[in-house]
C-alpha cells in the first residue's frame, strides 16, 4: 500500500516538474531555425539573397533555400549545414559569388564628410562617429559584410585584407605528396 502511494507521489512530482519546465525552460521560436542560425556567420550581409542570417536560416528550415548560398561561411559553412541537416554537402552556388579572403572595412579619414550613412548601414554598430565628424571603424567588431561600402557618398570606405600575424598564423596542411 505504502509502495503504491509512494509511486503515486513520485509520479505527481514528475508531473509537476514537467509542467514547470515546460513553462520556464521553453525554447523560444523554432529550434531548427535556431540551430541553423547558430552555424551561419552572422555577418548579416545579405549576399544569400535574404535580408540577414536569420531570414536565410528560416528559409532553409522551410526548405525554400539551398544550403550553399552563404559566401562568408564558405565551403566549411556549407559542410557544417550539411552535417546539421543530414544532407550532402555541395559547392557554393555560383550565383552568390565565391569565397573571399577575410577583410575589414577601413574609412579614409581624410575623405570622410561625416554623413553618418555608413553608421546606419552597419548591422553590428561597428562604426563610430557623429554627424559632420570623421568616422572610424572599430576593427574588432567589424564582420567584413561590406554593407557600408556602397552607401558612402564620397567612396571613402575600402575593404582591406586582414594580414596574417604571428598570433593568427596556423600550421599549413602538408603538401599532399601521396598519389
Amino acid at each position, binding site marked *: 500500500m505504502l509502495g503504491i502511494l509512494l509511486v503515486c507521489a513520485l509520479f505527481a512530482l514528475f508531473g509537476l516538474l514537467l509542467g514547470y519546465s515546460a513553462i520556464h525552460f521553453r525554447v523560444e521560436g523554432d529550434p531548427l531555425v535556431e540551430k541553423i542560425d547558430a552555424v551561419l556567420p*552572422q555577418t548579416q550581409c545579405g549576399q544569400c539573397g535574404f535580408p*540577414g542570417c536569420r531570414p536565410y536560416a528560416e528559409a532553409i528550415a522551410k526548405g525554400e533555400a539551398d544550403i550553399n548560398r552563404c559566401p562568408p561561411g564558405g565551403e566549411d559553412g556549407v559542410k557544417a549545414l550539411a552535417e546539421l541537416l543530414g544532407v550532402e554537402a555541395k559547392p557554393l552556388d555560383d550565383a552568390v559569388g565565391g569565397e573571399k579572403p577575410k577583410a575589414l572595412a577601413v574609412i579614409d579619414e581624410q575623405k570622410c564628410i561625416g554623413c553618418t550613412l555608413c553608421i546606419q548601414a552597419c*548591422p553590428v*554598430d561597428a562604426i563610430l562617429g557623429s554627424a559632420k565628424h570623421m568616422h572610424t571603424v572599430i576593427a574588432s567588431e567589424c*564582420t567584413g559584410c561590406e554593407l557600408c561600402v556602397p552607401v558612402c557618398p564620397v567612396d571613402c570606405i575600402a575593404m582591406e585584407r586582414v594580414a596574417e600575424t604571428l598570433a593568427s*598564423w596556423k600550421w599549413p596542411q*602538408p603538401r599532399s605528396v601521396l*598519389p
Partner: protein
Amino acid sequence: MLSRFWEFHGGVRLNRHKELSSEQPLAVAPIPKQLIYPLQQRGGLNSKALVAVGDQVLKGQIIAGDDHPLSVPTHAASSGVVTALEYRPVPHPSGLDGLCLVIDTDGLDRAVRTKSVKDFNHSKPDTLRRRIREAGVVGLGGAAFPTATKMNTGNRTIDLLVLNGAECEPYITCDDCLLRTTPDSVLQGAAILMRILGVERCIIAVEEDMPEAAQALEKAKLGGRPPSPPAPSPRFALPDGEGSKGVADATTYSNIEILKVPSKYPTGGEKQLIQVLTGREVPVRGIPADVGVVCQNVGTAAAVYAAVVEGAPLTSRIVTVTGPGVARPQNVVARIGTPIAELVAYCGGYTERAQRLIMGGPMMGLALPSDELPTIKSTNCILVADSDAVGGEKQALPCIRCGACSEACPVNLIPQQLYWHSRSDQLKKAQAYNLFDCIECGCCDYVCPSHIPLVQYFRAAKGRILDKQREQQKADHARLRFEARQARKEREKREKEEAARRKKEALAKAATDESPGRPPPSP
C-alpha cells in the same frame, strides 16, 4: 632500482649524440655586438616596449613588459643603446616577422643595481612569486611558460615538486651541463620553489645516462662541493658576477630526492615524467597540479635561485651549440638575445656538413630559415644538422596500417586514425580520437615506415579547429550586437510613434479647447 618506476606506453629509443657537446667544458660566450629581443609573448600578444630608439640601457634593465598574466618582463642582457624597434624575422614556425627591440651593445656591461632576498626562508610565498615574475623567469625547458604563473596553483593541494632534468631529446646537454657545473643553484632553487608551494617533497629526475649530473647533485646535497672546481653560477659567470652564495640550510635538502629515470624518448615530457615517477596520470586536458604535482625544468630552478637570492633577472642561459655542422660543439653561457650566427662563430663556425639549422632538438625543434635570428629564453639548443641527423623530406607513401605509430605513441593515441581524419578534414572525428592530447613528440613520425609527416597533419588540424572556434565566437558576438541593434531600432521606432501620437493628441486637445460653446468631451 628500475622496478620503482612506472612505465608509460610507447616511446622510442633514439641515438643520443650527447657526447658531442657534453664532453667539452662550459664556456662563456662574449658580449655580442647586437642583442635582439622579440616582443611577442605566449598567447600571441606583443608586450609593450618600455624604452625608445636612442635610449641608453643598462644590463638588467627592464626594456619591455606589461600586466598580462602570460607575459613577463624582458631585461637587457648588456648595456648599450636601443637602435631599433622594428619587424624582423623571429624564431617562429611561420617565418613571419615579429616586432623586435634591438640593442647595440657598448661592451662595458654596466648593470643596474639589483635587490636580493638574502633569507628566503622567511619570505612570504607571494613575495617570492612576485620576485620571480619581475625577474622575467619562464620555463627554460622549451615551453617558456611564466614560472610565477605556473607556481600559482589556485586551491589545488600540491604534495610534490618535480624538477625535470631528463633531457630526452638527442644532442641536447644544457641541463646535464648545468647540473654538473652548478648543482648548488638547482638545489637552492628547489628549496625556494618548495617553500612557495608549501610542499615537503621534491624529486629531481635525471636520465640514467647522466651519471655525472646525478653524482654532482648527490655531492652538493651532502653539502659538499661540486666535483669540478667550484664554478660560479652560470648566470654570474658574466663579468660583474658575484659567486653563488649558499643560503639555504643544507638540512632542507633532505627532502630532495635524486632519481635516475630510464632514457627513453619522451620521458622528459611533463606528463610522461610524472607518470614514470609517481604512477599518477595527469587527466586529459588537465595540468600536473590536478594530480598534486608541479613540474619545473632544472634550469628554471637555477634561474629562480638567481632571481631570488642574487636578485638577478633572467638575461642569460646555457645553450647547447652542437651537431655535425659545428666545428666545436659545446655548451655555452649565452646572453638571451644573442644572434645565432655569433654563437656559432664562437663555437668555431660551420663545417662543410652544415645543412639545416634547428632551434631545439631533432624531434621537436624548430627549423630556422637563417642564423640572423636571436636566441630567446626557451632556446636550449642550436643544432646544426647534416642531411641524416634529421629525417629530412622523404617521399611519403600511403599508410599501410601497420600500427607502428600506435605502438610508439606515449599518449596512447591512434595516430593513423588521427591522420586519416585530419587529412580528410573530419575535424570532429579527429577530436573524438583525442587530437588535442597529442604532445607533438614526433614518435609516430619517427617510426612510420611510410614517412608520413603525421605531426604536421596534427598541428594543421589543431590550428583549423582553434580557428573555427574563434570564428564561432566572433559570429556569436556579432549576433549579440546585431540583436541589440535591432532591439534599439525597434525601441526608437516605438518611441517615435509614441511621440507622434502624443503630439497629435495635444494638438487635438488644443483645437477642442479653442472651440467655445461646446462642453469638453467626457473622459
